[in-house]
């Protein structure tokens, strides 16, 4: 079991790095889908099969397909010169070293933590559902309102309108 965890973690890290450093947007998105599938395997190993299914269906299925559709719609070609300069190692090596130092700090702190031993019970999806619709029912309503606002906002932003200028600004 531990081997599968380490394998999935390595796949996730490598494919995420490839997704971030890729030049081609479609290739980067496909790498990101591999990374999300690897994280989904980790969720399954962590006794959360429902969350693993959600990760595949919503993240890798819906969100990434949205990205790919937009990328294909825009037909993005080669990157701009300025980004080529940004991707030059000389520019990002110092921030990366600083971030790596912070990571070392984080690892040392985590290793020094006194984390209590895990409790010996089982957690199944039924408990998650009961908790979601009893303790967190207000948060579910708020998430519904947020999704509604997202739908209206995306519709408003996505509709192709004629360019309207205010009557005072008209020449």
């Amino acid at each position: 079991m531990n081997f599968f965890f380490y394998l999935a973690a390595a796949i996730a890290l490598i494919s995420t790095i490839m997704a971030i450093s890729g030049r081609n947007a479609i290739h980067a998105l496909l790498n990101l889908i591999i990374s999300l599938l690897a994280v989904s395997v980790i969720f399954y190993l962590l006794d959360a099969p429902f969350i693993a299914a959600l990760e595949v269906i919503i993240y890798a299925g819906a969100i990434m397909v949205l990205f790919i559709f937009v990328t294909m719609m825009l037909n993005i070609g080669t990157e701009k010169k300025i980004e080529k300069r940004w991707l030059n190692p000389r520019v990002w090596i110092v921030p990366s070293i600083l971030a790596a130092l912070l990571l070392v700090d984080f690892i040392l702190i985590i290793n020094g933590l006194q984390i209590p031993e895990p409790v010996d019970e089982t957690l199944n999806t039924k408990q998650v559902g009961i908790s979601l619709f009893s303790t967190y029912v207000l948060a579910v309503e708020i998430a519904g309102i947020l999704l509604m606002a997202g739908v209206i906002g995306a519709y408003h932003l996505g509709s192709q309108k004629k360019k309207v200028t205010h009557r005072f600004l008209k020449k």
Partner: protein
Amino acid sequence: MLTVPIETMLIFAGLLFLIGLVGLLTRRNLIFMLMSIEIMFNSAGLVFIIAGRHWKQADGQVMFIFILAVAAVEVAIGLALLLQVYHHYKTLDADSVGKLKDNNQ
């Protein structure tokens, strides 16, 4: 039964978050910046799942579902904005979208 220590899992989630952060800071393409934000959302959710499994609390998985909803809304709005930016400026370079910047200084 998975016996990986929780420290290792947290470090893995931290590494994923770090990769997303570095991507957000180094890339200037708006699509890549949105992708990096997604990676960071995902690693934050991973921490919730890890902690929820450690203490056998359902709250971790509930929080992940909320993170999923927020990420979906964020992507929908972000991509709609991205389409509008492309429509107006014919580029996805984040630095070129600087019309609000005061150039008189």
